[in-house]
């Protein structure tokens, strides 16, 4: 077991390495002097010279990478000249709304998607199944900001049940926080529900064709027991895999959703950073999102062993 975890951990090193190289090269691929790009439009030539010195821009590129990587590993992500703060501070400030949004969305989405997928598989070919699958295709097709604005229009503007936009910290006013999370997490959840419901249905259907399901039925078990005890647990691994891959959708979606609902999170920060060409911030956010993605998927990989005793590598 430990061996398995250790090997998984080692396997993510090259993946993160590639991400780091890409993020590092981003700035070097930008037309123009990287120091000037980082410093922004209003920088003095002294500032630019100082940055150039710090990045070691006169050194060969692999040494520059070494310096940059060393800084990152020490938690020194550079300075945002646009926001006039260190990037680390900036991210610490902005992380809560994004984290809250992600957790709420996962809760909303999974508690809807898995039952929907199981029911659709169980009643394969029925009207209910077609309805769920139809909704799922729709969920893939309507962009989240359109869903977001529709929800705002109906529930916030027309009905006035919920606030239109904004964020309240969870520690300040819990109900206010929840109220402001309902629409964003539903918006962001739609595509995730579509994805997970679909894979749940597909995996359960596939498992239902397995020989051991026939054995279970030959034992005289009821359909419900066959489904809940035999099918669902065997379908867990592909469902978990897609939940993990779907985290990427969630992160991408957060950028949009935060913009629509005015949540001051990392997604919003990314857009602001791109618009103001604040490269240290863009680089760090991308690095951060990728690390989270990789780590979440690592945890999911490890969790497979809980569901399937065969996975012990």
């Amino acid at each position, binding site marked *: 077991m430990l*061996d398995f975890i*250790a*090997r998984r951990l*080692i396997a993510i090193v090259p993946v993160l390495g590639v991400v780091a190289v890409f993020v590092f090269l981003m700035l070097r691929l930008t037309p123009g002097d990287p120091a000037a790009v980082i410093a922004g439009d209003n920088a003095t030539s002294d500032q630019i010279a100082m940055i150039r010195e710090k990045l070691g821009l006169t050194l060969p590129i692999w040494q520059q990478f070494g310096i940059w990587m060393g800084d990152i590993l020490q938690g020194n992500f550079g300075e945002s000249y646009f926001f006039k703060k260190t990037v680390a501070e900036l991210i610490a400030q902005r992380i809560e709304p994004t984290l809250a949004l992600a957790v709420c969305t996962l809760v909303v989405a999974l508690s809807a998607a898995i039952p929907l997928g199981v029911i659709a598989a169980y009643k394969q070919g029925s009207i209910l199944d077609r309805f769920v699958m139809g909704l799922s295709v729709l969920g893939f097709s309507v962009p989240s900001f359109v869903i977001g604005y529709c929800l705002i229009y109906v529930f916030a503007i027309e009905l006035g049940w919920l606030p239109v936009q904004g964020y309240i910290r969870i520690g300040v006013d819990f109900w206010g926080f929840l109220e402001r999370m309902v629409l964003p997490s539903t918006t962001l959840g739609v595509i995730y529900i579509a994805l997970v419901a679909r894979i749940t249905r597909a995996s359960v259907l596939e498992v239902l064709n*397995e*020989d*051991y399901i*026939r*054995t*279970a*039925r*030959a*034992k*005289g*078990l*009821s359909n419900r*027991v066959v489904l809940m*005890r*035999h099918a669902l*647990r*065997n379908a867990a691994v592909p469902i978990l895999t897609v939940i993990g891959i779907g985290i990427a959708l969630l992160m991408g979606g957060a950028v949009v959703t935060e913009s629509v609902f005015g949540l001051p999170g990392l997604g919003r920060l990314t857009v602001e950073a791109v618009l103001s060409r604040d490269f240290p911030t863009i680089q760090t956010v991308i690095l951060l999102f990728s690390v989270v993605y990789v780590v979440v998927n690592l945890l999911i990989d490890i969790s497979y062993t809980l*569901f*399937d*005793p*065969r996975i012990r590598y």
Partner: protein
Amino acid sequence: MSVAVQPVLEVRNLSVALPKGADREHAVEKVSFTVNPGEIVCLVGESGSGKSVIAFTVMGLLAKALKPTSGEILLQGENILTAPESRLRELRCTRMSMIFQEPMTALNPVMTCGEQIDEVLSTHTKLDPAARKAKIIAILTRVKLPEPERIYASFPHQLSGGQRQRIMIAMALVLDPVLLIADEPTTALDVTTQAEILKLIAELQAGQGTGVLFITHDFGVVAEIAHRVAVLRWGELVEMGPMEQILSRPSQPYTKMLISSVPSIHPVHRGVRLDGATVLRTDKLGKTYSGKSFFQKARTVKAAADVDLDIRRGETLGIVGESGSGKSTVARCIARLIDPTEGRIYLGDTEIATMSARKLRPHRRRVQIVFQDPYRSMNPRITVGESIIEGPMNFGLSRDEALARARSLMETVRLDPNSLDRYPHQFSGGQRQRICIARALAMEPELLIADEAVSALDVSVQKQVLQLLDEIRVRLNLAVLFITHDLRVAAQICDYVAVMSKGRVVEYGSAEQVFGSPKDEYTKALFAAAPGRNWDFGKASAA
């Protein structure tokens, strides 16, 4: 059987419809038979005979696309064809049980074996957990599983195929049903395991007086286990009777044909010249797989080791062995589809084991291979003609010359030369295998490898393909390397036999010698396990 006994199973006039668009209307048509207490009835038939459909209909586990249209199925007098699903669920595992062909996939991989048997008890009885556990341990002991406590807590993947089939049998018999349905329960198992499982089923049913409906395609198994036999063809019952009668004095031509197609396990005396030039010789041939990993020690598996073989022109050498014995590895090394890790392969005077892919290409022509699965060994997207001429054209023949050769080869394998422009899916399994032989022959090889080439075929088709192979060997004075797990087939076609076990050749000699007086312990055990070895099908049908 005395008349007064009520049969445990009585099938009357059963018809099951196939979905529209199938190749015939009924999967099963007007079939009637009975199974009495303590009796083993074998349903025998080739693929598509509807034998499994009958089994699933009895259990009520038929796929939704198949609909029973008429007849009755009486389980101890109760018609279960019309019974509601809830009643069927009550009956399953209590009065009728079923075991399946694939023990590797028939058990839920994420539940322990104990839990899976426990489910039967908790569903159908009111026993408390302790009593259930005791009952499970008892049945595990009865099916002769070692260390029942450990097996109870094991997951299926930790057990061998034979052990899993024992778990299935334990699960099926834990509540002493009156009827056991066994759907090809030993087909996926090796011959030695098969013998043990057959023995176990016979013992258990005799002890409890269980009626058994045993589905199989293998007349060896029939001879081993059946009391009565029902022969099926295209969903219809051809004939039924006591086992000895059906096997030795079949009344119907189809049954006669089937039984005479079963190869005899006694090798025929073959007049072979032993002066042919050596075509292929291997010297300490071996293939070791090694998996590297960071933390574990490098694991190495010797798939084959120290294999010395020798084949002359006009001669068939058979390699027999159970799964995992390394017989296919040897064949694939010789065809250089995989690279051997040790030893030498001499093709005539040329050493090809260590030759680079580029240098090897001209020699590829000399060794040709026919694979097991007729459905996957031809590219489905190109015509069979294109498949056949591909090789000769690679070696410089013009398209016309190659086509002419393909046409004459189609005649050699007794197929219509005008069907060269058809696609593989338009041919049956047996026909495809003939085409694969033609494709191999088109290269004018010196050595033809048949890797389980008849194993996927029905027995009647198998006989024809074997005859064809033998004819071709004689006519072209070919050397043939014949890989098979089927001792009967080996006995009929091989001049020499190499028996492999765990990657090594344990016995090697002329077919008569190896079959007649085996010396190695493993070989002896293997032959002793061959089902129906005491029944000489060839002779019986001649009588």
